[in-house]
């Protein structure tokens, strides 16, 4: 505990002051410097505009590796380094060690010139091209996609529109797909309010500013995000492990990127408000999106304490998927904590590996 004791004798005073000074220095370091997130060795094998496709250097001999490569697709409004947060607590490091040929699609940080990029472009232009490169490099025609948050939404669109493209397994983490319950969570309430005008935001800024998105996410749990997290750090400031973990997470949380204007407007209007994906009225690049067309083996993982994508937004979509092999798993934790929290390596990661292993050879 970092709780300071008032000196009970004159001789304790210098020690106490020194301790406080040390704690303040630690506090300053972890709040004002960047932790070197994303340390697992990798190389860039493809780029398009701001997007990059990384290939992680395998650590398991080729003959012991799983045949089917794994592509990780994270959300568009945060950096994918959350998947490779720090050595010893990195999903990428874990899954590479399990013998998978792992690729990661980083959408990059959009600039003003990217304001017209929509989900149509992400799912039908960027993702298919990255997959084409993945196939060329891995030499495999089949592959697995693990999509998280909006990355899961993009992966779902792709899986429904290109079911014959070789997608063997589809893993969705906290996928926001069904927006029929307009009372489920703060986001859907706020964005369905008549005063909330996504068009106006986009007209003013071009892209949806990262700090506005960050505010929205933090405002859902204001006490935890604005006060609790710092108190937790202060309480554990003598514990280097907790401090390191906090530093890494704070680096990721503070690494804000904008969301392209067109995709933001599409998300609010076509998904949050009109629920087009579930209503069967969603058109992407002129093609009708039908989840019944998804044929890949499906694993849908939901975080029970997810305040960003409430359970019903993922769970209710399950019957719509056409996959014959589909499974829903609910794990403890929040939207990010389920994959990057301290319990993730005991709960979530082994479940993913346990499901994917037999389907990757």
């Amino acid at each position, binding site marked *: *505990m970092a*709780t*300071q*004791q*008032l000196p*009970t*004798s004159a001789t304790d005073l210098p020690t106490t002051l020194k301790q406080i000074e040390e704690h303040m220095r630690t506090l300053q370091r972890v709040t004002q410097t960047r932790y070197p997130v994303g340390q697992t060795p990798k*190389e860039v*094998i493809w*780029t*398009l505009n701001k997007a990059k496709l990384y*290939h992680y*250097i*395998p650590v398991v*001999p*080729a*003959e*012991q*590796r*799983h*045949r089917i490569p794994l592509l990780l697709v994270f959300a568009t409004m945060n950096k994918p380094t959350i998947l490779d947060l720090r050595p010893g607590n990195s999903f990428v490091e874990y899954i590479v060690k*399990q*013998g998978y040929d792992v690729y990661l699609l980083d959408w990059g940080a959009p600039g*003003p*010139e*990217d304001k*017209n990029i929509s989900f149509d472009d992400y799912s039908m*232009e960027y993702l298919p*091209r990255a997959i*084409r490169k993945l196939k*060329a*490099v*891995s*030499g*495999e025609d089949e592959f697995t996609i693990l999509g998280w948050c909006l990355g899961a939404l993009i992966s779902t669109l792709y899986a429904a529109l290109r079911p014959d493209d070789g997608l063997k397994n589809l893993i969705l983490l906290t996928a926001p797909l069904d927006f029929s319950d307009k009372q489920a*969570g*703060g986001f859907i*309430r*706020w964005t*369905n*309010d*008549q*005063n*909330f*005008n996504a068009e*106006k*935001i986009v007209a*003013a800024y071009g892209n949806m500013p990262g700090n506005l998105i960050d505010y929205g996410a933090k*405002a*859902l*749990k*204001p*006490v*935890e995000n604005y006060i*609790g997290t710092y*108190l937790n750090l202060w*309480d554990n400031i003598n514990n280097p492990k907790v401090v390191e973990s906090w530093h890494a997470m704070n680096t990721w949380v503070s690494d804000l990127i904008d969301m392209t204007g067109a995709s933001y407007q599409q998300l609010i209007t076509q998904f949050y408000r009109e629920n087009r994906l579930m209503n069967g009225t969603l058109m992407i690049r002129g093609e009708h999106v039908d989840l019944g067309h998804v044929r890949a083996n499906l694993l849908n993982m939901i975080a029970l304490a997810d305040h960003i994508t409430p359970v019903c937004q993922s769970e209710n979509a399950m019957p719509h998927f056409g996959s014959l092999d589909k499974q829903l798993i609910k794990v403890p934790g929040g939207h990010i904590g389920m994959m990057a929290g301290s319990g993730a390596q005991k709960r979530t990661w082994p479940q993913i590996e346990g499901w994917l*292993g037999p389907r*990757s*050879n």
Partner: protein
Amino acid sequence: MTQRPDDTNPMDPFGMMKGMRDGNMEAWSKMMQQFVNTEAYSQASGAMLDAYLTTSAPFRKLLEQTMTQVLTQFNMPMRSDITTLAERLTNIEMRLDDVDAQLTTISRASSKSQAATSPAPAPQASAKVADVQPTAEAKAMDPVVDTVSETGNTAPPTNKASTSHRSSKTKEK
């Protein structure tokens, strides 16, 4: 001097504050979560954002017009010019990406046909080639495959060989 536990030490205001804080934090957090999930909060935050965007719009427009005039006077490109250029660059990148993919396909097809027409190597060497030949890309990517392929193999790399090599892998965990 022996220190008493935090919760009973009257000389430790930090410990007492922490106790009080922990006691109230959960209730406070729950209350705030309920508050931000109310219709009233949705309406208020939406209205505030809308008011801000509406009132700041004329200033943004004025700034934009002024910048356009200034940049035009100085013969400098405007944001829209840079944006257009960037969009054109992305389009060129996409075309290059297509060309790259087509070249890869052609190169593979050519390697396959070359391998099919070339005389069969000695049985021992043939087995070696089929087993370990990676694609150029796989070689670049995969240090393990690369090490194996440096065993004196001289035949041109084929994707088929690489695929068969990978397909023959067995999972050992």
